[in-house]
């Protein structure tokens, strides 16, 4: 993919298909870890859902592009692609899943690597996911070193009550502006592509 934010969009579709009602998206950047060499920074993307999960056998096959339970096409590309993008930076990839409990994917990227895919517009991914799945709860957490912010739709729903859907235009506008403000605050005015890419 051109941007990791597109991979996130895609990986979360699996959680939606798995009938998750709560999906966490965590984008964590570590720039000052003494274990890393001076120029390296690490980007971790974690996607966690409470969907139907996978059996051990399914899980073993899931990074193989010829494994899919989809019916419209005989190859599944989403997970193999995401794994490859992490590993080609010298990073790592893991996936845990349990039937009935849910699935957690973790991808670590070494951002200084030549083959690093830029994060891209992750805010717009989060915004589209909320807009298109108004009945699912999302927790989006973005952090750089020890600074972080959350967007928690459960919290928003508590304020909005049952009458106002999350994907109404006024609420979506609030969400977009909140994400923009918080991100600027976090990365100090630079845009994502300048920091990671």
């Amino acid at each position: 993919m051109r941007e990791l934010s597109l991979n996130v969009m895609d990986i979360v579709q699996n959680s939606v298909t798995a009938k998750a009602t709560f999906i966490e998206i965590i984008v964590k950047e570590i720039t000052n870890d003494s274990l890393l060499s001076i120029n390296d920074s690490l980007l971790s993307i974690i996607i966690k859902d409470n969907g139907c999960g996978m059996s051990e056998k399914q899980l073993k096959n899931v990074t193989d592009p010829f494994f899919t339970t989809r019916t419209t096409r005989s190859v599944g590309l989403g997970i193999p692609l995401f794994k490859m993008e992490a590993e080609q930076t010298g990073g790592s990839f893991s996936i845990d899943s349990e039937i009935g409990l849910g699935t957690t994917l973790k991808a670590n990227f070494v951002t200084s690597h030549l083959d690093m895919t830029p994060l891209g517009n992750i805010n717009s991914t989060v915004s589209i996911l909320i807009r298109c799945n108004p009945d699912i709860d999302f927790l989006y957490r973005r952090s750089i070193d020890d600074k972080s912010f959350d967007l928690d739709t459960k919290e928003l729903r508590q304020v909005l009550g049952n009458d106002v859907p999350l994907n109404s235009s006024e609420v979506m506008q609030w969400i977009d502006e909140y994400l923009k403000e918080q991100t600027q605050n976090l990365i100090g005015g630079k845009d994502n592509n300048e920091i990671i890419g």
Partner: protein
Amino acid sequence: MKSLAELQAIRDKAKQQMNMRGEQPDAIRVLVGMATCGIAAGAKPVLNAFVEEAAKRNLQNVIITQTGCIGICQFEPVVEIEIPGQDKVTYVKMTPEKAVRIVNDHLVNNNVVTEYTIGANS
């Protein structure tokens, strides 16, 4: 800074006006294919273009949402338009520019943009 108090104000205003759309049975639905194939081919900017153009024209009865892969990956990005009482229209090889035209011609004026449909492209 955006605060939860502001969100509360949005709720109170909506309650007063009672115009928040819950279920809209006669809404137009715009379904953007968001499987791996669609996303890789550029479905995200297409979806954004629909959202922005519909907001610009203040179209209240349009729901823009995602759908899975409908099995025609070579035509992605694919967008389906469902208007109640009419046949579903499938647009293929979508771009943000095409999306703007479809909002104006098809959603507003009810003229299908035939040249962008799957029928004209296969």
